[in-house]
């Protein structure tokens, strides 16, 4: 939907609505998707901005909430490890810093995934009454997650200072990794948000899914060289992503280059498929939500 084929000299736009329009476009649909996305970037910013101020406006602790989850988890796991309740192998760097450097990108991923899943159902009112590229609802959810990430980074900086350490120089590549991570979350979000608009069970299940996924990812423990660990680092794209993010931040090396490359290709593929499916079903969202 929303084809914008320029017609006439005055730069006027004619929109044509016909059934199964995308089928007639062939591969040209990718170009249309891209043009639409670029055209909507202002709206993405605006919606992200809206979510951020709306979230912190009416709460007493305001942006401190962004710190709450990662800090609480860091303290809990530091306690569990220190009290030897959970046998987590020793790490080269101080454990609180280790666990926080894993929780930070994981939290970004989890917030993106949770937010995008419910993004369509949350905006059902708007979907029925206004015409705009529906992708923006999903993509704009990254804004809030990135904002929380930036706020929580202050704690990370504090930890570096506390332990008298400095990040490795490779930290300059860190944003690229976050981009991959966010792209992956959005790609999954495309599919999950569509599913959620058809069956509401998805929204209920997503919290549990994220929790289990975190336990299967080396967030609070170092990656293991065992057979199970090797399988997980291939089957679970988040495993090399989290490990590499920690490598870039703390070690200045990349310990899983092949797995990371594999994960990156997999993530991009999933994102493209998700986006295409989303675009295909986009015209149906408003009437079925």
């Amino acid at each position: 939907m929303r084809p914008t084929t320029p017609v006439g000299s005055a730069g006027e736009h004619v929109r044509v609505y016909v059934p199964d329009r995308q089928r007639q476009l062939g591969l040209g649909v990718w170009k249309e998707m891209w043009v639409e996305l670029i055209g909507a970037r202002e709206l993405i910013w605006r919606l992200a901005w809206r979510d951020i101020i709306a979230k912190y406006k009416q709460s007493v602790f305001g942006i401190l909430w962004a710190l709450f989850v990662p800090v609480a988890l860091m303290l809990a796991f530091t306690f569990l490890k220190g009290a030897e309740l959970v046998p987590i192998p020793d790490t080269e760097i101080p454990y609180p810093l280790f666990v926080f450097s894993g929780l930070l990108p994981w939290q970004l991923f989890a917030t993106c995934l949770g937010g995008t899943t419910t993004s369509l159902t949350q905006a059902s009112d708007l979907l029925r009454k206004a015409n705009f590229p529906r992708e923006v609802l999903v993509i704009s959810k990254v804004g809030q997650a990135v904002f929380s990430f930036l706020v929580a980074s202050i704690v990370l900086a504090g930890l570096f200072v506390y332990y008298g350490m400095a990040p490795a120089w490779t930290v300059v590549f860190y944003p690229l990794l976050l981009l991959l991570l966010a792209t992956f979350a959005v790609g999954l979000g495309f599919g999950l948000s569509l599913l959620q608009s058809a069956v509401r069970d998805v929204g209920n299940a997503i919290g549990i899914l994220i929790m289990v996924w975190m336990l299967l990812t080396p967030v609070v423990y170092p990656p293991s060289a065992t057979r199970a660990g090797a399988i997980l680092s291939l089957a679970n794209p988040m495993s090399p992503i989290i490990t590499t993010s920690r490598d870039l931040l703390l070690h200045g090396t990349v310990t899983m280059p092949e797995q990371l490359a594999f994960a990156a290709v997999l993530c991009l593929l999933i994102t493209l498929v998700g986006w295409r499916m989303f675009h295909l079903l986009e015209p149906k969202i408003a009437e079925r939500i």
Partner: protein
Amino acid sequence: MSANETVVRVDGLWKKYCKSLKRSAFYTLADAARGAFGLPSHADRLRKEEFWALRDINFALKRGECLGLIGPNGAGKTTLLKVLGGMIEPDRGRAEVRGRVGTLIQLGAGFHMQLTGRENIYVNGAILGMSRREIRDKLGAIVEFADIGEFIESPVKFYSSGMLVRLGFAIAIHIEPELLLIDEVLAVGDVSFRARCFERMDELRRSSCAMVFVSHAMHMVGRICEKACFLHRGCAAYLGDTDEAISRYLSAQSEVRLAEAAGKGVGMPYLVEETAFQDEAGNQVTAVECGDTLRVKGRLRCVRPLGEGFANLSIKSSEGLVCSECRSPKLDLSAISPGERMSVELRLPNLALMPGVYWLKFVLLGPSRVGYVANTDVPYQLRVKGRMDRAGVVHMPHSWSFSGAVGVAESHGSDDRMSRGAP
């Protein structure tokens, strides 16, 4: 752009919906799977529990024109608006829309309750397709039009529903659309705001914006639209002249009511066998002009003898308002035996009804003046011809006179006689 350019063209448009939630989800997935493999979806035929919400709609709209969409609830009016707005995709046929589309469908949809009115202007404007610059330029005008005072800095959740509509309308109307889709939204605002909305809509039309207007207020449709479409169960039952469309719709509505009333009162003492409308000369008529003389003739057959009663004619407007009742003196009916017939004639000189469709009900009342004592399932509906651009049911005889440099720009017809010269 030429003034005569077509803004909207709809050709053989069909749209179907699914009644069942589960099936709807299944069909969506099935269509998506077919789409993913490049196969056509099953868009053009009905599957189980699907129905056509729109069937074969065709029309074109030029710049500055306004189309009224009227019809009973569930006729497909909003569905058609949504197809034109691009919210939903047609299943057959095509719709072509030129230029920017403004939608006034449920104003304030997408307002975020925690944000202030001003913040919401930025968000809503962006959703409606305004650029950041455009919003900044028009912010002042929007705030002024909404006219909600200091509330513009308060969270929207503290707004009254009227204030929400004001803000929503103010934003939507400032995107300078070439096509405006309006869905029964003006009913909420207060009188002064509504007046300003119409003023602004007139302005937009002069700057050659086309409109599609959905409303149940017939006098509004009559006032604003030069053509109208009467939708009935998804079909365009009539498309063309506004007055004709309105009277067809009102007639259809009355027929629905009559059908509901049919069969009530079976076994009553009298049966109305026939009702007829005649003009002064005695010709059968179904439509009259305001000011004409109307003769209502009825024939009743006695089923069971009745002692006393009254003949009664009630005149109801198409909206169900009883405009008037005409009652006979008390009648002595004791001499009529079963099987015998009686005739009655009622003369209404100088009929003072506004143009519209009326429902005349001719019955006998029992001695206590309540309750019918005659079967009444004969449809009798009267149409009063004329422009349907005014509200009300009673036509007050009147004449206009003006002083000063006032001329008549356009004469409405017989009932707006104006005397020239100093009063």
